[in-house]
């Protein structure tokens, strides 16, 4: 089948605060801003954060004490740059293989004396689908499309209650 390349999503925002502050809010204080409606689990989200080290989790804790990982930190360069994989289920643990994850890079550039341009690039969506060498290995495991679809099903359940 033809491999599908999906263009990255690129976004930027100017924040009236220095890069170090923005970096901290983006990671440690994730819970204070991450849209609650986009949880991968039913129930009330009571905490979320991006742990401050390579290998750290991007996770959310719910009121039933379950913790769900969104991804893992692969680059931790405060206050300039952050890279994390975008996973969608705890199955990640038993099916390691960054080849099936999309990834998110966040950069923080000082803008003036007291401002920061924060740029987000969410890329490699096609890794979650078909095509690509890494995907070939994962295609028969629990990875690939199944995960992506579970993700959307999860979002969908949240967004469109019966």
């Amino acid at each position, binding site marked *: *089948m033809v491999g*599908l390349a*999906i*263009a990255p*999503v690129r*976004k*930027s*925002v*100017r*924040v*009236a*605060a*220095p890069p170090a*502050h*923005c970096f901290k*809010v*983006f990671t440690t*204080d994730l819970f*204070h*801003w*991450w*849209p609650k409606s*986009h949880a991968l689990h039913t129930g009330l989200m009571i905490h979320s954060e991006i742990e401050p080290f390579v290998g750290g989790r991007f996770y959310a804790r719910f009121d039933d004490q379950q913790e769900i990982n969104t991804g893992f930190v692969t680059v931790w360069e405060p206050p300039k740059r952050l890279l994390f994989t975008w996973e969608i289920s705890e199955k990640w643990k038993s099916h390691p293989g960054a080849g099936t994850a999309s990834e998110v890079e966040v950069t923080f550039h000082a803008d003036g004396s007291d401002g920061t341009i*924060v740029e*987000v690039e*969410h890329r490699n*969506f*096609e890794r979650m*689908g*078909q095509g690509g060498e890494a995907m070939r290995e994962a*295609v028969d495991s629990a990875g*690939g*499309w*199944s995960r*992506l*679809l*579970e993700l*959307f*099903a999860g*979002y*969908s*359940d949240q*967004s*469109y209650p019966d």
Partner: protein
Amino acid sequence: MANDRVFSALADPTRRQVFDRLRHGPKPVSVLAKGLPVTRSAVSQHLRVLKDAGLVADQADGARRIYRIDPKGLAAVRVWFDGFWDDALVSFKAAAERTARKEKSKW
């Protein structure tokens, strides 16, 4: 909205399974239905929903139809994330600036 259709199409586990099977390449309904706990006509119904959502496309091959994944539906996935990050960054900016003001006022 096109995305709504994509999400609701994928919300059904059997439909996800049908869609997932097309990952490996185009297939006719008879092959797609093999091993699934539903009838062939149910699979056809699922395919219709997936097709309406733009997730699969089909073409005639003699008397039967061959289904394949339609890249246009995948583009909808990207569109979804596009909107998602818009929302997230608006919220992030507000939080970062609110807390920055608080810290400044402490100085």
